[in-house]
């Protein structure tokens, strides 16, 4: 379970990247975080894998609390979380296989095990044939599938996807969403931040709406959220 209690984040002297966030995310849920650019979605996600620590309040992720977490524990926490980024964060001059195997190499797994896990995952995302190719030679959609495979190598309890379709065309975006849905179907929690309302409009998942560093209250959320979807779709 992930819990935010009165969490605020200030970047340097700029206050209010996040303001008094109170949230609870249950295990096994597929949750969508929606909101315009700059609303604080990415900051919220970075708090979960403790890339930043809150300026105020506490974030609890499983047994770890931001209140007293050591750098060593942050590493352990990150090994239990899969993260997917808009810009994929692949090492471009490494092969696809090496990129996916990196989390396992970090933990010192044996070569045989690494090979088995990575090949299974590459097969699942439909890129087994690309294992020896450099990451830089892949299309954007393929890169995101590699990033998802990498996020799954250590069988995380949650996959965090920060605008995973932000750089992709419609078909590739749908592929990515369907991959995340399959991951969720296998019992892993998924937390996806997006402002691609069109892509997720028919999905049944829990939605959290954010604006100006705040989570909008549930009773207003649906209305405001629906209005916003229409508004943004019109503008686009």
């Amino acid at each position, binding site marked *: 379970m992930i819990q935010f209690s009165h969490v605020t984040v200030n970047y340097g002297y700029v206050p209010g990247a996040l303001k008094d966030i109170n949230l609870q995310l249950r295990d096994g849920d597929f949750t969508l975080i929606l909101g315009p650019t700059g609303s604080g979605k990415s900051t919220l996600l970075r708090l979960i*894998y403790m*890339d930043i620590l809150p300026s105020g309040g506490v974030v609890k992720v499983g047994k770890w609390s931001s209140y007293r977490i050591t*750098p*060593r524990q*942050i*590493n*352990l*926490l*990150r*090994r239990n979380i899969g*993260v997917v980024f808009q810009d994929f*964060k*692949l*090492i471009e001059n490494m092969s696809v296989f090496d990129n996916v195997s*990196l*989390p*396992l*190499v*970090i*933990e*010192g*797994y*044996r*070569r045989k095990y*690494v090979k088995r896990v990575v090949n299974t995952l590459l097969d699942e995302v439909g890129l087994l044939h690309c294992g020896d190719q450099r990451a830089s030679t892949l299309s954007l959609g393929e890169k995101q599938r590699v990033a998802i495979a*990498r996020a799954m190598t250590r069988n995380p309890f949650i996959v965090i996807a920060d605008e995973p379709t932000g750089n992709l065309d419609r078909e590739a975006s749908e592929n990515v969403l369907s991959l995340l849905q399959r991951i969720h179907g296998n019992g892993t929690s998924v937390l996806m931040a997006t402002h691609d309302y069109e892509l997720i409009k028919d999905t049944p998942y829990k939605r959290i709406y954010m604006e100006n560093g705040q989570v909008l209250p549930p009773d207003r959320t649906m209305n405001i959220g629906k209005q916003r979807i229409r508004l943004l779709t019109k503008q686009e």
Partner: protein
Amino acid sequence: MKFLFVLRQTFNNLWRERTPVLATILTIFIALTILIALFELSWVLYNQLYELKRNLVVEVYLKPSVPADEAEQVREKLKAYRTIERIRYISKATAADIFEEEFGENIMDILDENPLPTSFEIRLKSSFNHPEYLSVFKKQVEAMPEVDEVHYRHSVIEKLENVTEAVVMAGIFILIILVLAMNLLIRNTIKLSVYARQRQIMIMKILGSGNLLIRMPFILEGAFEGLVGGIFSAAGLIVAHRFLASTFPLLNFPARVYQLLWINTVILGIVIGLLTSAASTGHFINKVYSKK
């Protein structure tokens, strides 16, 4: 798998930053070579100084009026000095024999008389063969009423001691400059490698990598530069000795010293590379990570 990964990353770094890496290796090679040259020079000078001091003879000339039996009393007085290792009495006749041995002519044939004074040849214990004590000893002995003059080759010893001291001081000064230069260059190469791979470092951190795994390729990179610089320097030393030892016999070190010298050159190279890169890697990685 982790070990292979580290090795691969190390050699990737070395290949990617090959120009600064070569410059660093060259600097380490030059620095270590100068260091060895200074060490050898100091070694030779110290050996010379030691030999000179070991063979140093203090000559005590008695006044011509002092008869032989009084000379014996002077000898007893000198024996009281615990700093003296050996005293040799040289009578006028012995002095004339030495003259003949050295110059091939009998002094009596040249001058019809023997003007050479009675004297003592004194060898001091080696720890007292330094200019400060020698000058005190000279003053004390010259104060004896029977003694005319005390003489030793102080100027050579003093000059050699001054030169040795100057070489050692210059060596320490150059050593500091060279270590600083090596330090700066290795730091710079590590900095370039870290900045070239800042994206990878960031990704590895997000994936939960420990600091050691991230730092290790950079640390090994520094150690490798030190190793190669050290090997080149040791090879240079071996080649130089092969050519120079026959011309300069002073450079014929005992085999064990020579072996230790080139082994230590390589070890010194590795240690310098390792310590500098270990010290700078953490700094640059933290800088890169906090910048993102």
